[in-house]
Structure formats: structure tokens, C-alpha cells
């Protein structure tokens, strides 16, 4: 089977790319191991809702929906959004087709699947950043009496044994899961490392509305001071709910959750926690205040002072006086550990040497160093919003333009090589910076 471009993954990122390829009449196929929006269907807990409001799902070519713009989609609604989008743009998705390898060939790539081999001149990796839950190595030495679960397998508190729960990680997943487990009557201890604290709403508007307006989400990868750090940030402590509540550490403390430092060791059946909790909270509070400063500046510059509530600051994170530095996991107090310690991508099927020593794709704003190969939908790939549904459109447009230039240039090179037998170097136009 031959095509010009193979897109691997039919989530929002792969579909946005499909739409842009179709606009340029570039022949392509979207390969999907399961159904459209597979991870959203199979790897999310029951109560999860999108962290971004409904208006913030501006996928290219998506017809306007009928949803409440300021609401937050449940998982079935999110699956529905993406599935309807695939239909609306008539994406050429081949479902139940698992890619088993991608190799370089003379003219491009051979993409092997469990349903045959595709040959194409370019490949777009849109399998996402959250394929395999990260679990610390010390998990292997846990007492057997402790049950462990990762967020992709976690569904609801009722699936857990009665008794105490240690949730490790205070990102969006960790804080939401800690909150609902605590409310189920199980005593939760939350292990907190570096985290990103933001309020759900500020000055009467959703934080995403502010970040969108102030251009925070449009910040480009080549404009930030420390890209490595920006790409490694955990997800912000946000939850989508009808009452638009803020779910920060203060809210969790009020709900009865016990905070401890980052889990750093396991010794003699005891979990050991870092004494750095005050500093990680100080870092998060200062970072939140810098964001709010920026929002206030934007509000002043943009004449939003009158239409929004007055500026204010939130209470600093309240610290427990002496958080425990260890916890005996054999005492029976902790029956379950939830590893909300992030995810890593799985490129085990990618037989092209483009991974760095940590198994991440080396890329420049989504342009992978192997010619004709692109990646989509990973954190801060081209912009701060790259991992959001709302960020896929701008990234797909940019990368599709690059892909089209690559196809033109390589066709031109092939033609001139055939006619003159000389080798013209393939040169590509630099991507135009589309600063907001």
C-alpha cells in the first residue's frame, strides 16, 4: 500500500494533521491501533473531565458544537467530540491497525502494521506523550500487602481496598484522584514534589480564558528561556467541574488530605519523603503569582479592568508543621499506592534513530531530524498549548506547511537528479515564526 503521508494515531493531534493534509490535497492515511480517541476511551478514570473549558477545543475545520462554552467535557463527551470531528473532516482513519515498525526506505518510510505495510514519503508521529505510566524504580521493592494502581488503570475509589491510600504526585491527576479517594472515606496521604499551582478562576474568569487572551498559551518553543524545563513541567493542578472549584493543596488539606514531601526512597518497608516540601510549595506559589502578575498586566493593557473583578492574590500554600519524613508501609495504614507520577511516550516500534538517551524524539518544533518525519501533540512542542486539544490546530498548520515544502523540494531534487544525474541538495524553507 502506498500513500504520501502516514499519520500514526487518531487522537485530536493526528486528526488535526489529517485535516491540514486534506486541505493541501496531500494523500494520506491515519492509522489507529484501536478506535478514534482510543486513550480517551480506555485510559481515563470515571469522574475525569477536560481541564480546559468547552470553547477551548478549536480544532481546524471543526463545525461549531452546541455545548455550553464554559462547561467541561466528561470523558464520553470528549470521545464524542473527537469521533464527530473525525467524521466531520472525513479523516481517512484505518482503525484497529497497530503499527509494529517504522523504517527508513530509499524514498521515505515503510510503516508495518498488523494489517499490512504502508510505504510513504513522510510520517507523522501522533501517538501522544502519555503512553506508558512512569512508576519509580523503588515500586519493585514494595511490601506485597500494598496494592498499586496507575492513573490509566484507575477508575474510581470503589475499586480500591478499604484503608489508607498514598497518592504519589501532585499534578492534575494526583490532586483529582487524591480528592475523590479522600471523599470516599479512605484517608489519603499525598506525596508532593514540584508542582504547578493555578486557580481555576481569577477575577471572575477561567484561568484558561486569561492565559489564552494574554498569549501565555501561544508562547513559542524558541522563545522560552529553558525549553527543557518547560517541556518537563507537570500538568497544572486543575480540575473541570460545574462549580469551577480550585483544587490546590490548600483545598486538599481542607478536605483532610495529609501532605508529605516527594517520595524519595524505600528502606526497610518504610517510604521516605523529602524534606523539601516547603520549598516546592514556595516555588509553586511564586510561579503562580508571576502568572497572575502577567494576567493583571494584560488586563490593564487590554482595558479589561472594568469588565473583570479586582486583582487579588491567593493565600500561600499552608504547610503542615512537621510533615512525616517516612511512613511504614507494613503497618497496614497504607493499603494502596496510586502512582500519579507522569507518563512517558512509547516509541518501541520506531526503528529510525531519532530518540535521545531518555527515549524522547529529538525534534525542532515538531520537525524530526529524519527527513519527512514529524511529531505532534507532545508538551510544548511548538507552543505552550501544544499538548492541549486547542493547540493542535496551529501546530498542524505549521508542520503541514513544512511537510508540503519537504515533499515539493524532494520531488524537485528527484526530478533534477533524474534529468541531470547531478545531486541537488534538498533545501527546505525555514518555518515562519507565527508569533501571536
Amino acid at each position, binding site marked *: 500500500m502506498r500513500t504520501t503521508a502516514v499519520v500514526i494515531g487518531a487522537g485530536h493531534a493526528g486528526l488535526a494533521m489529517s485535516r491540514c493534509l486534506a486541505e493541501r490535497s496531500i494523500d494520506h492515511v491515519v492509522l489507529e491501533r484501536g478506535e478514534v480517541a482510543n486513550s480517551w476511551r480506555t485510559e481515563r478514570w470515571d469522574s475525569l473531565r477536560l481541564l480546559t473549558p468547552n470553547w477551548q477545543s478549536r480544532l481546524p475545520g471543526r463545525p461549531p458544537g452546541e455545548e455550553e462554552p464554559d462547561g467541561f467535557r466528561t470523558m464520553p463527551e470528549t470521545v464524542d467530540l473527537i469521533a464527530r470531528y473525525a467524521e466531520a473532516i472525513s479523516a481517512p482513519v484505518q482503525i484497529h491497525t497497530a503499527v509494529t515498525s517504522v523504517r527508513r526506505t530509499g524514498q521515505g518510510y515503510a510503516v508495518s502494521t498488523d494489517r499490512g505495510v504502508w510505504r510513504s514519503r513522510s510520517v507523522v508521529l501522533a501517538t501522544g506523550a502519555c503512553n506508558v505510566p512512569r512508576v519509580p524504580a523503588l515500586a519493585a521493592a514494595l511490601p506485597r500487602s500494598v496494592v498499586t494502581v496507575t492513573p490509566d488503570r484507575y477508575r474510581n475509589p470503589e475499586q480500591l481496598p478499604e484503608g489508607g491510600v498514598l497518592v504519589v504526585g501532585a499534578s492534575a491527576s494526583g490532586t483529582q484522584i487524591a480528592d475523590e479517594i479522600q471523599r470516599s472515606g479512605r484517608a489519603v496521604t499525598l506525596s508532593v514534589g514540584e508542582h504547578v499551582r493555578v486557580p481555576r478562576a481569577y477575577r471572575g474568569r477561567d484561568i484558561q480564558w486569561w492565559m489564552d487572551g494574554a498569549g501565555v498559551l501561544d508562547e513559542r518553543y524558541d522563545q522560552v528561556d529553558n525549553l527543557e524545563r518547560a517541556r518537563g513541567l507537570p500538568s497544572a493542578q486543575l480540575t473541570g467541574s460545574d462549580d469551577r472549584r480550585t483544587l490546590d493543596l490548600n483545598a486538599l488539606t481542607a478536605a483532610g488530605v495529609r501532605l508529605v514531601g516527594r517520595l524519595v*526512597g524505600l528502606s526497610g518497608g518504610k517510604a521516605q519523603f523529602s*524534606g523539601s516540601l516547603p520549598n516546592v510549595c514556595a516555588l509553586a506559589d*511564586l510561579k503562580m503569582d508571576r502568572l497572575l502578575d502577567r494576567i493583571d498586566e494584560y488586563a490593564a493593557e487590554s482595558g479589561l479592568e472594568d469588565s473583570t473583578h479586582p486583582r487579588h492574590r491567593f493565600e500561600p500554600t499552608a504547610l503542615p508543621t512537621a510533615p512525616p519524613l517516612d511512613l511504614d508501609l507494613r503497618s497496614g495504614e497504607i493499603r494502596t499506592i496510586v502512582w500519579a507520577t507522569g507518563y512517558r511516550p512509547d516509541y518501541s516500534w520506531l526503528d529510525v534513530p531519532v530518540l535521545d538517551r531518555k527515549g524522547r524524539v529529538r525534534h525542532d518544533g515538531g520537525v524530526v531530524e529524519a527527513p519527512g518525519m514529524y511529531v505532534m501533540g507532545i508538551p510544548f512542542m511548538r507552543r505552550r498549548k501544544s499538548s492541549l486539544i486547542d493547540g493542535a490546530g496551529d501546530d498542524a498548520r505549521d508542520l503541514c506547511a513544512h511537510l508540503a515544502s519537504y515533499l515539493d523540494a524532494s520531488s524537485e531534487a528527484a526530478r533534477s537528479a533524474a534529468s541531470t544525474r547531478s545531486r541537488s541538495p534538498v533545501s527546505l524553507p525555514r518555518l515562519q515564526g507565527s508569533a501571536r
Partner: protein
Amino acid sequence: MKTTTKAVDNGVNVQALLDAREALSEAPEATKFTWRATCTWVNGTHSQSTIDGFFGLGQEQRHRTEFTLEADHPEVFASEDHGATPVEIVLCGLASCLTAGVASVAQLREIQLHSVTAKLEAGMDIQGILGMDGDVRNGFDGIRVTYDIDADATPDEIRAVVAQSQKRSAVFDILTNPTNVTVQVN
């Protein structure tokens, strides 16, 4: 926004550190350092440590000169007080590490420092070291560090420098996180 009339200079060559980080990303083996100290018993609780060589950047390195450090215990412990107690030296290590970080981070962020003073306090219940109560730990029950910093920056910018310094501090890490310690006898 502050207007800078003259270049910020905290005496830290940040460019050299940034260049080193860049160069080391190409040569990960050169990032492995080994630090050493030699301690000799003098008499009673008095000992003298010398610090001279270390390993790093792929080879043996030396300080410009050998340093010595006296340690002892005060007279209330029936000792002769020839030097700081080891736990006080630990506090100095933390303070110096954090303060070096404050200077470096401030330099990187173009914040001119005028004065930096850290005061440290650590509580300890000596029932632990005296073996009176097995439930009391030997070490500190906590360390409190208080900085007084005069710099050309807002209070939040100064707090952010101090927070970042903790985040990048080796001694802060050593004190807040467990470390395997192996003691052998030849």
C-alpha cells in the same frame, strides 16, 4: 522594570557555567565528580580534616591549596572546644551551598546583590546521641534558614532566587533526601 545603568556583577562567572553545561551535555562522563575528605583523630573529641584533591571532568583535580578544618565539641560536653561541632559544620555546608546558589541565580537573573546573610538554626534532642531514648533521633529535628538579602529586586524576585537556589543545591538535597552511607574499616 528596573533600569540597569551598570552591568550586574555578583562575582559569579555565569557564562562559564552555562558554557560548561553546554559542553558537558556532549560529554556526560565528564559530569561525574568524586569529593573527598580525610579526617584524623587528634585527641578526645577533637579531629582535624584535610581537603585537597577531588575527581571531576574526567581527571584528578586539586584545590589551589590544601584546606584544614578543626572539629570538636564544646566544654558543656566535657570537651576542649578546639573547633566547631560537626553538626555546626553541616549547617555551614548548607548555608554556604545555598548562598553560592543565591549569588549564581541572582547573577543569571541579572539581580545585583549588595549583601546576603543567612542565619541558621537546628533543633536537636541529645537524648538520641546519648542513647537515653531510642525513639529520639540523633540528628536535627529540623533546620531553619533565614536570609536577609539586600538586592536590586522586588521581594518576590528575591524569594524566587532563594527558592531556585534550594532547588539546585547539593547540600539541601543531601539533607532533605536519604543518602546511602557505607562505612568500612580497613
